[in-house]
């Protein structure tokens, strides 16, 4: 009898769970899965708009072939956006981890600094950052007005003061520029890391302290492994965010295709790009698991 009753409550629980997820499941199918399948179909067909109705004609791999072998810009754009990604990804990851560690410590003015570092979250995810990071405000050859990075460091005369040779100076400026762009993109990542660190039980640190571990060891043997799952989330978020930002070359072309109603070409392009992104993401997570997680197994 008792067992039967138990089963009954379990069944109710099960139904409850499904009820809670019912709206989301409907939405997922209608507004995500269905369009995703359509987009896949578009990429394999010739799309014609006929009084607002979409007419598809299956053409097989034609769109992909045209993109990969006939479109001279596509491969170029793809490599450009990937090199940019590979160059700034580790910077973003390390910078946000370091800043999260610092901001998670107790020190004077912590709240103030935290408030300051979260400012990019508000601004950077938007269109504003593009204007701020733009090196010039020229439109259709109107001429260069100002470069923010140059302004920042030459107006304060730091570089002149140091007396660096001009080549080093430009190099320094480009590094600072990249660092700044990276910094403005790490707001959310810092938040994710901090809340990940908050979930680590204090007990672990107390034990380490008793055992006489140094801060460095504490980081490598406690903080870092405990952050593994958050790190995976950060990797996924950063990859998606960076490669699908408005400033990405491939995305820009895809959008211009969309606006000129070349739906098939645009879909095919996005699918190739997505395949590349997800294989990158998979590779990063795999590498992360292989090299970073092995130490504690």
């Amino acid at each position: 009898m008792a067992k039967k009753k138990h089963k009954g409550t379990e069944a109710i629980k099960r139904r409850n769970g499904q009820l809670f997820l019912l709206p989301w499941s409907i939405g997922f199918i209608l507004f995500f899965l269905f369009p995703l399948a359509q987009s896949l179909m578009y990429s394999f067909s010739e799309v014609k708009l006929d009084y607002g109705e979409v007419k598809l004609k299956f053409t097989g791999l034609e769109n992909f072939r045209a993109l990969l072998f006939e479109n001279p810009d596509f491969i170029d754009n793809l490599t450009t956006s990937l090199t940019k990604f590979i160059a700034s990804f580790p910077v973003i990851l390390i910078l946000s981890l370091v800043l999260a560690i610092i901001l998670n410590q107790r020190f004077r003015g912590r709240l103030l600094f935290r408030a300051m570092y979260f400012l990019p979250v508000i601004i950077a995810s938007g269109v504003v950052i593009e204007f701020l990071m733009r090196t010039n405000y020229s439109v259709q050859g109107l001429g260069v007005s100002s470069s923010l990075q140059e302004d920042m460091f030459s107006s304060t005369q730091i570089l002149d003061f140091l007396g660096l040779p001009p080549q080093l100076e430009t190099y320094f400026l480009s590094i600072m520029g990249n660092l700044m762009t990276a910094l403005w993109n790490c707001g959310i990542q810092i938040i994710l890391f901090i809340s990940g660190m908050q979930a680590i039980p204090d007990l672990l640190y107390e034990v380490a302290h008793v055992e006489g571990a140094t801060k460095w060891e504490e980081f490598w043997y406690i903080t870092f492994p405990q952050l593994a799952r958050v790190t995976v989330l950060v990797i996924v978020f950063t990859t998606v965010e960076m490669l699908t930002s408005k400033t990405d070359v491939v995305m820009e072309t895809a959008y211009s295709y969309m606006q000129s109603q070349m739906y098939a070409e645009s879909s095919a392009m996005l699918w190739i790009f997505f395949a590349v992104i997800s294989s990158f993401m998979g590779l990063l997570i795999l590498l992360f698991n292989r090299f970073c997680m092995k130490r504690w197994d």
Partner: protein
Amino acid sequence: MNSSDLKLNRYKRAEQIKKISYEIFRYFILFSIGYLVIYPLIYMISAAFKSPEDFLNPGIVWLPQSPTAENLKNAFKVLNFKSAFVNTLTLEMVSAFLEIISCSVAAYGLARFDFKMKKITMAALMMTIIVPSTMIIIPTVVNFSNLDFLGIIGLINKLTGSEIRLNILDTPLTFYLPSIFGVGLRSGIMIFIYMQFFKGLPKELEEAAQIDGANALATFIRIALPSSRVVILTVSVFAVIWHWNDYFLAVMYTSQNYPLAVSVANMIVNITSSVSTNTDVITATTMAGCLMFILPVLILYMFVQKGFIKSIDRVGITG
């Protein structure tokens, strides 16, 4: 004084030096990176109030000599600020609100209950996080221009020979529909954050309520939600910011009733055509427009900032 005391002293001093140098290192990093964060903001504010003469005067770096509201006025006009602002509120902010609610419901289901297909549901959720919304935007726009999900309207049209077409593009529904179901702009991440928090919430209270006869929905609303203020605040801040800044979806969904983010993104073209082609004026007007765009969120952030920063400590994501 014996030698062990001396050693201890030396050790203490070494420790102290280590501590101080670390302190210096920390503030050095904090301030230098803080400079990188704050500089563009100050630049924006300063440029927004500069007159063309101030730009030409090399002696003026930060404080404009003759501060002018002309830039703000121009930006206000170019941005079509009034209607774009109202559109942002009615389109983006309402759908942010809907998303905050719908995501919490889905996340509670995933965090608290075991059911058939839970693994598949989780995989589907991960998919919504990983697949960029750009992937599905074309079919979504096509579908919204002719809303007919199960082919019912098409069937009616066929049977009665009528020509009914439900075009919901450029209406609020385009924004609300996905948000109501919790699959709107970056809903996946919001569900994920909610879920992590709900998992860490003690079950006892909810179980007690259920024994007392409350059903699952009542338990969720009366017991779980009130103790989740922290995570609701975090998710709300994210939702508001992301929706406020949303450009991609908005530009595809709207043609006339566009929100502020779209008009800010198209600002430079409009400035050159209607205000001036002088680069300094373009810079100043652009910065004024940017300032007007971020000011509402900035003010909002100032109000919730303390709670938000503290809430991050308490949400605790374990992945």
